[in-house]
């Protein structure tokens, strides 16, 4: 299975995955999250579990089960960890704990390494067998969300579970906390073989263009994102309007509706009103599983934007860079980690800045091409799924050899 990636990802990453799997052969590695489908976590697990099995690791993936009440609570926890004020009662935390306790009965947590994803199953650590606490079994908590400025009460409630783990993993340095356990930094990744990122034929791309009624007669500017304020869709339209005075072009705003956001509908209507009757603005509402369509839209575009004003990591930037597209992103979340300003794209701080950079790209195709190529190489070395798998295995191995700064394999 791992051979599928050969020739695409860095050789060293594949080699290290193989070496680590040789060392960890026969050991069990369980991942627990709260959804089988949808979202970046499920996407990586779908790929990673069979790949690890193929390399001799007894890898399993368990999904925490909960009812609507539980997921309402964990959605609030998620929002509060991202800094939004939410109301919590003691009962809600008891319910959260109780669902974790019930799941303990159905999930076999007896493994050499246990990797728990995000807050929903975090309390499972409380049911870790006493014998495994002092032994060589490794429990790791993986946080995929932006916890730079959490609501303190919610973080302290969660923290009492987190400190029981052997180590924690955060996506960006600034999300890490001052904890008495090891904290590793692992950036998220994209899968170059998935429908969202694989190579497409011209025919496949043209079909999507026809499907959405997008003529290919002028340069296309694209932003793929949920319709919420933090992605600044109005700002993107404003930037397009400035550019339009100088360069004829089209704008595509493509994304899924923000169903869990009560403001989602209002923002979408606002964006539609703001776009008015401009036939060169295409607002596409796509269900979250339309990966091939997103891929095609990215590939038919000339400039790709992620003009967010608040962002977790913003992997759409890496997706665009992987397709050798020149990118422009807001200087928030993980975007500056992906865009090396002036080399793999441009980081911007305003509508005017975004418009200026779009014009630069449209007027300098050679520069756009060069940055696109640099961007793809940067993603190849830093943001592909094999690097993330490599990191998880490395952290497991490092945790088995705690205290060492250099490990020879």
């Amino acid at each position, binding site marked *: 299975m791992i051979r599928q990636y050969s020739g695409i990802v*860095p*050789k*060293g*990453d594949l*080699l*290290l995955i193989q*070496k*680590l799997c040789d060392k960890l052969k026969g050991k069990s590695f369980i991942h627990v999250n709260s959804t089988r489908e949808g979202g970046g976590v499920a996407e990586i697990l779908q790929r990673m579990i069979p790949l690890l099995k193929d390399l001799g690791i007894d890898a399993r993936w368990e999904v925490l089960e909960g009812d609507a009440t539980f997921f309402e609570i964990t959605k609030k926890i998620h929002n509060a960890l991202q800094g939004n004020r939410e109301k919590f009662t003691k009962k809600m935390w008891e319910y959260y704990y109780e669902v974790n306790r019930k799941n303990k009965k159905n999930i076999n947590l007896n493994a050499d390494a246990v990797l728990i994803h995000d807050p929903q199953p975090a309390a499972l650590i409380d049911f870790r067998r006493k014998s495994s606490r002092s032994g060589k079994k490794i429990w790791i908590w993986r946080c995929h969300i932006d916890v*730079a400025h959490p609501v303190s009460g919610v973080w302290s409630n969660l923290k009492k579970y987190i400190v029981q783990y052997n180590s924690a993993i*955060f996506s960006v*340095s*600034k999300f*890490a*906390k*001052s*904890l008495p356990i*090891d*904290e*590793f*930094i*692992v950036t998220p990744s994209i899968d170059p073989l998935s429908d969202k990122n694989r190579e497409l034929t011209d025919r496949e791309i043209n079909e999507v263009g026809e499907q959405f009624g997008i003529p290919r007669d002028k340069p296309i500017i694209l932003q793929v994102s949920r319709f919420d304020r933090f992605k600044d869709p109005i700002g993107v339209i404003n930037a397009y309007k400035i550019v339009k005075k100088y360069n004829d072009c089209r704008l595509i705003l493509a994304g899924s509706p923000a169903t869990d956001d009560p403001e989602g509908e209002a923002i979408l209507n606002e964006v539609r009103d703001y776009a008015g009757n401009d036939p060169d603005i295409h607002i596409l509402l796509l269900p979250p599983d339309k990966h091939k369509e997103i891929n095609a839209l990215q590939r038919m575009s000339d400039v790709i934007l992620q003009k967010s004003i608040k962002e977790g990591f913003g992997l759409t930037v890496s997706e665009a860079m992987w397709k050798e597209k020149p990118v422009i992103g807001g200087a*928030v979340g993980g975007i500056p980690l992906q865009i*090396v300003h*002036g*080399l793999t794209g441009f980081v911007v701080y305003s509508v005017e800045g975004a418009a200026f950079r779009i014009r630069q790209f449209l007027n300098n195709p050679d520069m756009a091409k060069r940055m696109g190529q640099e961007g793809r190489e*940067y993603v190849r*070395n830093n943001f592909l799924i094999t690097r993330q798998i*490599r*990191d998880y295995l*490395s*952290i497991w*191995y*490092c945790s088995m050899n705690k205290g*060492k*700064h*250099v*490990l*020879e*394999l």
Partner: protein
Amino acid sequence: MENNIEPFEFKQCVSIVKSTGKYASNLSELRKLISRVGDESIFHHVYQYFLKGHMLEYTNDFAHWAGEHLEERALAERLSSIDPYTLKSVSEVRKELIREIDDFLSNFPEPRDVAPGSEFYFNETVSLVFPVGVKTRNLAEFLVAIGHIDAGSIYYHFYDSRVRLGEGVVDDFSRWIEHTLYRKKVADKIRAIDPFMHSIESREHIKEIVEECVRADMEGVED
């Protein structure tokens, strides 16, 4: 005869980043933490900057932060001028960093705090070192290999070795070429490449030197 030669075995280094949980919002905090964090953190932010492959205006993370976030260009230039490969140890690098910051603070007013989210986060790494399955016995094989290996391998043999071996000036490549192949002139040319002035593109310079030598060997030109 080549069977008796100790081959050069290419290895690679992959670093997994660990947070220390410490961060600085202004220059005084940065100075305080530089004096307190472990050697591993200084090593990561100075020596491993070369592993990033994109050498822009700066040569280490501290200089980068001073320039891009504190917006103190003079300080950034001075921190960038600290050449870790001419210093004997990480603790000397630490002393130099502190000396430059103290000097700056005694001549200029303390810069304002950086914007939230732009703080300097102190990290360190755990390095995993592994053979990449490539061994070479002569310069021609070495030439093929050097173009083929990942950047992490160049880093391990050309940069990390200077700290690992504790000799301050020697890289693994020139050591093998001199002591196993007895080609001192080639080794000296490789040693003349200034690691501080190049990032991973040192690979191209090493290739040029070895290629020139292999071509001369083929044409029977004496060393």
